[in-house]
């Protein structure tokens, strides 16, 4: 259980957010209304997903003060907790892709196509370029991330189709194919994460005995060697694709990793 403590906490947060959206009004006040694209907290504060807002802006729309403020709050929040915390602590599609990754390892499925981890950045660029040229939020016509979120919160049957589709993609086509290679939403939040405050640090990297546990659970294992290997290993996971999921922290028997604040200035 000690090796699952952060995972359990993450699932509680993810399901808790869904629960707050679905629970309706308690004591006459709605906790959360809307969905993860935009929402209203306690019927006062409006939150707007910055990636959606950016698509709308480059399509030529003026968003207005309420939604710009909503974007600002969300961006500031993720600057503190790390941009891709959205991916592992909030996005419900992460539950599906984590399950797919577990399924792969449990049934020893090795199918893997070679797709660059940078494809997501090109997709992000393509999505924004296409929004600008078409003057429309083209990606949102097909975006499985917002489609899945909206689907489970509004009870649309398409949520099942999207969930199963992404699961099959991750199980039989490629490991971590959606979240780790293709998802432009994750690529966008990784941009915020380049200056994110909360980080996974490796203060006791000298204790590492190369057991490989962290590599097996990490959804972005390519970011670990700079922290663990070489003559001058970094003291902090520097790569912006780290989702702050904390799996490496909890599975490491030698407590190499821990959450911490990024160092400023020269390292």
């Amino acid at each position: 259980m000690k090796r699952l403590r952060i995972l359990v906490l993450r699932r509680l947060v993810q399901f808790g957010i869904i629960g707050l959206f679905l629970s309706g009004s308690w004591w006459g006040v709605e906790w959360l209304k809307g969905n993860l694209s935009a929402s209203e907290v306690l019927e006062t504060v409006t939150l707007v997903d910055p990636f959606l807002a950016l698509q709308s802006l480059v399509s030529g729309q003026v968003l207005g003060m309420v939604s710009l403020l909503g974007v600002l709050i969300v961006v500031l929040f993720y600057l503190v907790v790390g941009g891709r915390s959205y991916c592992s602590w909030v996005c419900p599609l992460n539950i599906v892709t984590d399950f797919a990754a577990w399924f792969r390892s449990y049934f020893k499925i090795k199918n893997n196509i070679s797709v660059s981890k940078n494809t997501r950045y090109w997709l992000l660029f393509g999505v924004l370029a296409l929004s600008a040229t078409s003057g429309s939020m083209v990606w949102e016509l097909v975006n499985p991330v917002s489609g899945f979120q909206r689907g489970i919160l509004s009870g649309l049957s398409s949520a099942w189709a999207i969930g199963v589709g992404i699961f099959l993609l991750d199980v039989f086509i490629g490991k971590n194919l959606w979240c780790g290679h293709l998802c432009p939403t994750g690529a966008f939040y990784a941009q915020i994460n380049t200056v994110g405050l909360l980080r996974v640090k490796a203060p006791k990297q000298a204790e590492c005995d190369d057991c490989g546990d962290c590599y097996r659970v990490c959804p972005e294992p390519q970011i670990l060697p700079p922290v663990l290997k070489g003559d001058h290993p970094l003291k902090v996971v520097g790569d912006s694709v780290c989702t702050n999921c904390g799996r490496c922290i909890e599975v490491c028997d030698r407590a190499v990793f821990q959450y911490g604040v990024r160092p400023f200035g020269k390292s």
Partner: protein
Amino acid sequence: MAQAPQKPNLARRRFIADSGKAVSIVALLGFGLQPVINQAQAKSVNYIRPPGALPEADFSAACVRCGLCVQDCPYDTLSLAEYGQVAAAGTPVFEARKVPCEMCEDIPCVKACPTNALDKTLTNIDDAEMGTAVLIDQEHCLNFLGLRCDVCYRVCPVIDKAITLQMQRIGRSKHAVFLPVVHADHCTGCGKCEQSCVLDESAIVVLPRDVARVSSAEHYRVGWDEKQKRGKSFLPEVLDLPDRRPK
């Protein structure tokens, strides 16, 4: 003398490869999404937007598909479009035949919208332009057949402005018929008429404005309107033609 083999310019190679990737991904996205874009941008008669919705092209770029308008609608009129529906997935629509817009005076759906997709300048619901009612099949309309059904006229929230009854003699008998006539300037597109039509399928249907209406032809003028604008008629009231008499 043989030239020494040049060191490959890695930076340039990477730039060319990356540019190629960018172009191909944008092109693939564009081609792949084109049918979806076409479908979403096509004129549709199957759905109506909530009050205050921007023109369709702007609306689909301004709506973030959060569903707050749907949640704040007290009559469960609105719903989010599903994949495969004609409207872009996740955008709010309603089907008037099922649940029409009740035209709340405080317009909660517009207030709920976090972006400008539903225009906040709409404060009087009577100014809403969700669509325009059109009597699409007058041959089955009971009023055209001579009955005094009048249901669409009576349920209209803008009665006697958006729908009027026009008396007309038909000559089949001594009786007159009362034809429901829609006046688009006053019709909000709420769909109460469509919902309440007593036929199995509604003879009167709310259509999106861009489907229901055409622009007036530039070269035609309505004489009495022009006269009012100008204060007097274009032509002298009485034409004084030269008298011609047989010699």
